[in-house]
């Protein structure tokens, strides 16, 4: 079992049989292959981006000119609330989790994530919670209090209907998914790295998602508490937020922003990680300042919590009027400055090749700087008072979110699509894709800054003519539609290249990290032999070695133990990645899917107040967990 073999002689068919997923319904619902789960995450999150995008298009149509009446005020309320909630929660993090799920094991030379069934669970819960959220618009009762849902406007007496019950429960539902997903990422980063991949050889993308995951498990419970309170108050009249009963509406704001400050880092750090992978490959050199960037990443995650502490202890309550994005942006300046300079230095001292992934990565840097500047500007309090709740904030938050989430995501798609499908995305269409998005975005969102300075408030469903906003809004709408066209080009590119794209081969970009050592697309077992790692860029050692005259220990990716007595991979120690044990990984399983179904039943019961249904769901949850954990002989998985 443990004999060292070379990639050529490894029993590929046997491994294929061990790791492959059965065809048919069982395979579809039961697979725990991280690559399948990762792709599902990506596709589902992309679908939410499109849904949120359509909502945005509707809003921009309504705002294209003064006094339009395409949408009623209530419809507009629901649209921006649903748009913000969808984008922030069901798109921005899940899409990054999709990349992490797909790429991580390949990047670290492992055969799977630490908890494959938990991984499947995390996906099914994500999907189910999204379906749950999107039940509400079909009942005409979508969330309507903005994405941060301030009390007391969310309380039943001011907001009857199920709108905010859906909001509260859908988010609690998603939180469960995100939390188990985060635990899976942390377990993977700690235990699953190939032998020799010590922490100082671990790719920055790992640091990004790892930091986001740690921040998630500390921050998300705060959101959960806020939402449980909201639900209990709305449904049962527990007065947490209502001053009449001794509650306090600011309790919501505290709990929400304790979570919210870290959250903005959670949804950008992995994207920064993606860019830190893309740039070295196309600059044809290792990342400059690797250690600093790794430390800055972790520091950013910690600062995310510090911002809130500063709010709480230094000044008491009032300063919460500061816009959250601006407050956060002030402190992010130092670590993100480090990252930006490291990227620029890498490009500067390298021999950059501007293929599409690199274009998006460069666009990412540019938008990062613009978004950063407008953020720092708003962090000045008197200035903030001028612009809070105006379109300036809308402009700023889109620069942050689209600039340093979506552009990073696009870079990731162009970069890793060949790995996932074996085919390259079309380069010409890709360049069009980039320029249309980049120009459309700036055309659409830059004028919002000005509209904001001219006093246009956010969250208005229309505006009268003659305030000097008309031209700016028309421009914004045109730019938005151009931007959307850019995304359409991307979809066309994916649809075409999936079948007809140029064949990629294992390493189309001549990258230096481990995922490029596997075939494209990788087989179910990822690596025929377990690699051993001795540097941050195992595939570039020949070249770098020659450059630096270093002949230190080399990574070995073509020879190693096969481990073919079952679904086996290596467990390594957390810091140095010394091999500790051979792990037996779990088989495909229906339990994660069934658990997500049971959870859905419970949540539908809770939102409609059908307690028998909620009870049924709860029983189902207990039963599926028991079935899941029921001990099997040495077949794998933790008995937890």
């Amino acid at each position, binding site marked *: 079992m443990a004999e060292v073999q070379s990639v050529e002689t490894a029993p590929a068919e046997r491994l294929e049989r061990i790791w492959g997923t059965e065809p048919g319904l069982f395979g579809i619902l039961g697979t725990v292959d991280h690559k399948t789960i990762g792709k599902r995450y990506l596709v589902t999150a992309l679908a939410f981006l499109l849904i949120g995008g359509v909502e945005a298009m509707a809003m921009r149509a309504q705002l294209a000119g003064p006094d339009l009446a395409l949408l009623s005020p209530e419809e507009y309320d629901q649209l921006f609330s649903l748009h913000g909630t969808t984008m922030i929660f069901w798109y921005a993090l899940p899409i990054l989790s999709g990349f992490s799920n797909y790429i991580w094991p390949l990047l670290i030379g492992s055969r799977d994530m630490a908890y494959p069934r938990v991984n499947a669970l995390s996906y099914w819960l994500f999907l189910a919670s999204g379906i749950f959220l999107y039940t509400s618009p079909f009942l005409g009762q979508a969330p309507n209090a903005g994405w941060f849902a301030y009390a007391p406007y969310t309380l039943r007496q001011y907001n009857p209907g199920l709108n905010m019950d859906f909001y509260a429960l859908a988010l609690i539902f998603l939180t469960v998914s995100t939390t188990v997903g985060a635990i899976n990422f942390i377990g993977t980063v700690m235990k699953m790295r190939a032998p020799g991949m010590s922490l100082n050889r671990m790719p920055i993308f790992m640091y990004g998602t790892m930091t986001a995951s740690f921040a998630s498990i500390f921050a998300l419970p705060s959101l959960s508490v806020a939402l449980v309170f909201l639900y*209990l108050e709305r449904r049962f009249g527990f007065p947490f937020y209502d001053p009449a009963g001794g509650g306090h509406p600011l309790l919501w704001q505290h709990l929400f922003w304790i979570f919210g400050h870290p959250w903005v880092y959670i949804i950008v750090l992995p994207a920064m990680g993606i860019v830190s992978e893309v740039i070295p490959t196309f600059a044809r050199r290792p990342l400059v300042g690797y250690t600093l960037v790794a430390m800055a990443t972790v520091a950013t995650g910690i600062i995310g919590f510090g911002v809130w502490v500063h709010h709480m202890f230094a000044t008491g309550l009032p300063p919460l009027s500061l816009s959250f994005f601006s407050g956060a942006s002030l402190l992010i300046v130092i670590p993100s400055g480090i990252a930006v300079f490291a990227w620029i230095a890498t490009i500067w001292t390298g021999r950059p090749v501007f293929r599409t992934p690199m274009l998006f990565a460069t666009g990412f840097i540019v938008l990062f700087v613009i978004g950063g500047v407008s953020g720092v500007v708003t962090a000045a309090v008197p200035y903030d008072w001028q612009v809070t709740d105006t379109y300036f904030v809308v402009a700023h938050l889109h620069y942050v979110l689209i600039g340093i989430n979506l552009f990073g995501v696009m870079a990731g798609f162009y970069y890793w699509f060949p790995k996932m499908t074996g085919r390259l995305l079309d380069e010409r269409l890709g360049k069009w894709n980039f320029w249309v998005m980049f120009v459309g975005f700036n055309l659409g969102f830059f004028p919002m800054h000005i509209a904001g300075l001219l006093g246009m408030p956010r969250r208005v469903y229309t505006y009268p003519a003659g305030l000097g906003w008309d031209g700016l809004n028309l421009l914004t709408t045109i730019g938005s539609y151009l931007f959307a066209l850019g995304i359409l080009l991307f979809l066309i590119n994916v649809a075409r290249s999936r079948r007809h794209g140029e064949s990629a081969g294992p390493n189309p970009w001549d990258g230096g990290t481990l995922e490029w050592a596997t075939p494209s697309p990788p087989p179910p077992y990822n690596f025929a032999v377990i690699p051993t790692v001795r540097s941050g860029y195992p595939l570039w050692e020949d070249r770098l070695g020659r450059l630096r005259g270093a002949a230190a220990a080399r990574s070995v990716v073509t020879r190693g133990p096969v481990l073919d007595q079952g679904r086996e991979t290596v467990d390594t120690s957390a810091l140095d990645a010394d091999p500790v*044990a051979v*792990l037996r990984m779990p088989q495909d399983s229906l339990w994660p899917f069934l658990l997500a179904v049971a959870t859905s039943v419970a949540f539908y019961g809770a939102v409609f107040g059908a307690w028998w249904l909620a009870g049924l769901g709860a029983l189902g949850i207990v039963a599926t967990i028991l079935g899941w954990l029921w001990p099997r002989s*040495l077949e794998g998985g933790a008995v937890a």
Partner: protein
Amino acid sequence: MSTTTFPAATLSLGNRFDRSPGWWAMVWTIVTEASLFAYLLFSYFYLASQARAPWPPRGPLSLELALPNTVLLILSSVAVIWAERGIRRGDQRRLRIGLLVGFLLGLAFIVIQGIEWSDQPFGPRSNAYGALFFTITGFHGAHVIVGLLMLLAVQVWAWMGTFTEERHLGVTNAAMYWHFVDVVWLFVFTSLYLSPRFA
């Protein structure tokens, strides 16, 4: 080439030992759950600090039931520790008896907690204090019930002979969770029952 690969043949097999991925899964679950209780208690102290009426509205809660109940819960943890130490030496009898005693003490705790709830002159709708009292102890009670289910499952598996001297991660994880539930109770007890006496 100065390094080859590593000697996989010498490694142990499986996923059921301390510091294994399965063990860490429980550790991080506990960390995130502990944060949840931290935010619950934060909310309690925040609303206390903002309260215009006396807090708690009717003076500090009685310790008559809560104090002995706390002792019960600690004893149940001791029993579970005893059981886990047992299986580490391969002692199946100790495992089963310890788990059973721990379970029964935990069950007693939850029953007494029920009496404590029904004895209160206020309800969760009366005021913010009541809402917090019932929500926080309710959350804790729910965790006790989950812990009891774990102890029960592990008990059944112990009778099936699942656990051995080397492989008993299920016991270790259930025990960790149970101790966590107990430690959280000490925080809840200190915050809700003791702190108003010193305020």
